[in-house]
């Protein structure tokens, strides 16, 4: 069986076609989903891709969160369907309260585009099983509202439950892509829900799937192969 992975397009979504390509490269069928449709066409998993949905006006993700497709995504996520939010998608997941916390303007106040080093903190989610905890990967980061914020209690809880999925790796030089690029609390780059089926992160795995494009690395491909493996073996 081929896994069918839905990729949602909101008005202003930018990385939907790239995400579809990444899904296909990883060996699954990419199913375009439209924000106005409640129907998610029976897909096995959903990716909310990056971009500036609704221009990021009001707050990033704030308007998309109320779209008809999200009503279904929220319902199915609670029922265990794997959902990945990348960048703007992560912001939508936070606004939708599928993931705790919120994203704020980068502390440097500028848009940051760079090849970012990340440390995988857990292989225990639907989207990270093909990585190893502690592994360092490098994937593009590009955003202006990427500063992850939550209150201390929530942060402690995330840590205690092993739900910090990725951190910005800070051990090396900024020129090599190390360091916290946006002031995220506790260097958090991505988190998961308690069940591990919903994951959100700011950097863009879908731009690190081919040796020819982007940064020339394929470190992002395992997001998609992780979920496919899980779906196919399920």
């Amino acid at each position, binding site marked *: 069986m081929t896994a069918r992975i839905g990729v949602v397009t909101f008005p202003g979504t930018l990385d939907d076609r790239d995400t579809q390509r990444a899904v296909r490269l990883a060996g699954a069928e990419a199913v375009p989903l439209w924000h106005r449709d409640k129907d998610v066409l029976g897909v096995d998993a959903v990716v909310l891709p990056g971009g500036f949905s609704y221009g990021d006006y009001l707050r990033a993700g704030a308007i998309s969160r*109320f779209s008809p497709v999200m009503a279904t995504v929220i319902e199915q996520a609670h029922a265990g369907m794997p959902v990945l939010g990348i960048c703007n998608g992560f912001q939508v997941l*936070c606004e939708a309260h599928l993931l705790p*916390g919120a994203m704020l303007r*980068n502390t440097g106040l500028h848009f940051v585009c760079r090849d970012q080093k990340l440390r995988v903190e857990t292989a225990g989610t639907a989207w990270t099983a093909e990585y190893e905890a502690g592994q360092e990967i490098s994937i593009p980061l590009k955003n202006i509202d990427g500063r992850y914020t939550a209150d201390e209690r929530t942060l402690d809880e995330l840590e205690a439950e092993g739900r910090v999925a990725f951190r910005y790796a800070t051990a090396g030089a900024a020129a090599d892509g190390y360091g916290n690029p946006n*002031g995220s609390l506790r260097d958090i780059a991505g988190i998961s829900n308690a069940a591990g089926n919903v994951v959100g992160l700011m950097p863009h795995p879908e731009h690190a799937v081919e040796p020819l494009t982007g940064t020339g690395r394929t470190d992002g491909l395992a997001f998609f192969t992780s979920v496919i493996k899980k779906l196919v073996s399920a």
Partner: protein
Amino acid sequence: MARVVVDVMLKPEILDPQGQAVQRALPRLGFEGISDVRQGKRFELEVEGPVDEAALARIREMAETFLANTVIEDFDVKVES
């Protein structure tokens, strides 16, 4: 037609780099004596019909669920005269 204003500010405990950037720039521009700056949003809503308690309650709900993200922000609703 009446105007209702919704002010949305980051919660006090949340870092506000925009406000800080303004504050840091002020002495360089020759403005002294400002000990803190916070930057938030102001929404001006033109409301059709009377702004009675029911209307205000609806706007408060709108602010709570939509205009502000109460994980990080506080809001305030006022009728402008």
